[in-house]
């Protein structure tokens, strides 16, 4: 399974977490692709923190409007029933706990549900953008990321060592290897990707894992 396929698998799996009628914010990058895998029989409204509820698919070529974009700067369209609002209302929705789910990328997560995804000191400082608010406020925080970094090191740690985005707020981690729920007792391994196996997941994970009674598979 190549890297592109693995990323597709991650977002496909996350799409299954979304229920009919949910209001969802998708982060920049891989999370944005979740929108492409929503089953046709459910209705989901995507919020983008730059000020729209009801993000539609990308426009046809030639119909891009530079004033109609998502939080990543990508061109979007307007879904029927959409609403526009300013930044204050947008973050009132986010911080006020009105979104059902947010999907975000991560540099690191840890077994306490901590998340680091906004800077690598001395190296890369893009800024937190809306991520800290999204993680602080949303009912369900889902992380979409590759299980290991490019050097093969686990991104799921006992304790994050990069500056945090928020503490104890992550609910679910979906990687190319596993689906892991953050519980009060620790990280609960619920599913293993079909291309790998439990032992490989354990080896690829620095954090302690509690293995669920019936570990499922996903692909």
């Amino acid at each position, binding site marked *: 399974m190549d890297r592109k396929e693995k990323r597709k698998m991650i977002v496909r799996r996350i799409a299954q977490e979304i229920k009919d009628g949910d209001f969802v914010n998708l982060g920049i990058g891989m999370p944005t692709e979740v929108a492409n895998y929503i089953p046709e029989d459910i209705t989901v409204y995507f919020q983008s923190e*730059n000020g*729209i509820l009801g993000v539609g698919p990308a426009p046809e070529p030639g119909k891009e409007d530079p004033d109609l*974009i998502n939080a990543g700067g990508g061109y979007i369209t307007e879904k029927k029933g959409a609403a526009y609002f*300013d930044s204050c209302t947008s973050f009132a929705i986010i911080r006020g706990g009105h979104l059902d789910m947010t999907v975000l990328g991560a540099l690191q997560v840890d077994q306490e549900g901590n998340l680091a995804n906004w800077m690598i000191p001395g190296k890369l*400082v893009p*800024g937190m953008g*809306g991520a*800290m608010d999204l993680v602080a406020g949303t009912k369900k925080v889902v992380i979409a990321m590759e299980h290991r970094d490019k050097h093969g090191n686990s991104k799921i740690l006992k304790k994050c060592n990069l500056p945090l985005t928020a503490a104890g707020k992550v609910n679910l981690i979906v990687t190319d290897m596993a689906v892991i729920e953050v519980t009060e007792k620790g990280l609960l391994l619920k599913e293993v990707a079909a291309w790998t196996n439990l032992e490989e997941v354990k080896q690829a994970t620095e954090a302690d894992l509690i293995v669920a009674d019936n570990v499922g598979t996903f692909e």
Partner: protein
Amino acid sequence: MPQIISAPQAAALIKPHDRIMFGSFLAAGAACSLIDALMEAGTQNLHMITIATDYDDRGVGKLISNKQIKSLQCSHIGTNKSTQAQMNAGEIEIELIPQGTLAERIRAAGAGLGGILTPTGVDTVVEDGKQKFEFDGKAYILERPIKADFAFIRAKKADKLGNLVYYKTARNSNPAMAMAAKTTIVEVDEIVEIGQIDPENVITPGIFVDYLVKREV
């Protein structure tokens, strides 16, 4: 009632060290004519307040590429190489602020509040040096208002009283910033007669607007 002026006239109001809020989100809703005029004027050592520094060659980022910005409060600089480079070279001073906190601090300034308590940034470096509170088991940090001398606002349409309507995701931080600066300058596609905007649809009432500039780009 706001005065209608040209973009160069607006730029001439700005002095070195002024604090300016720029509406924009990755160049959507940036007051491009005003930004271009300010580049033409070449005023330096400005303090910029904006959501993100957009792109090197588009939106508010052009002023950074042009080295007119000495200090910066924003939530994201990842799309602009000049900002990163000037930060690493110590040429620009940056306070990174969570985007919702930034919006709320700007709103607080406009609404006469002394601050707001937010859970955003708790247990992160954002809380450093700030007063912390706990209510019902939830922690909050005190964030203070952000004020400015000027706001550069982009709207779609204004009537001659300065009542504003916006366009799609170009709205973003513009309405909050319009409230929070001593002097608010608005770049619009169209200036219409009083009475031609439905009072129900006004997003920014004219009371917040000092100058109108017709967009030229």
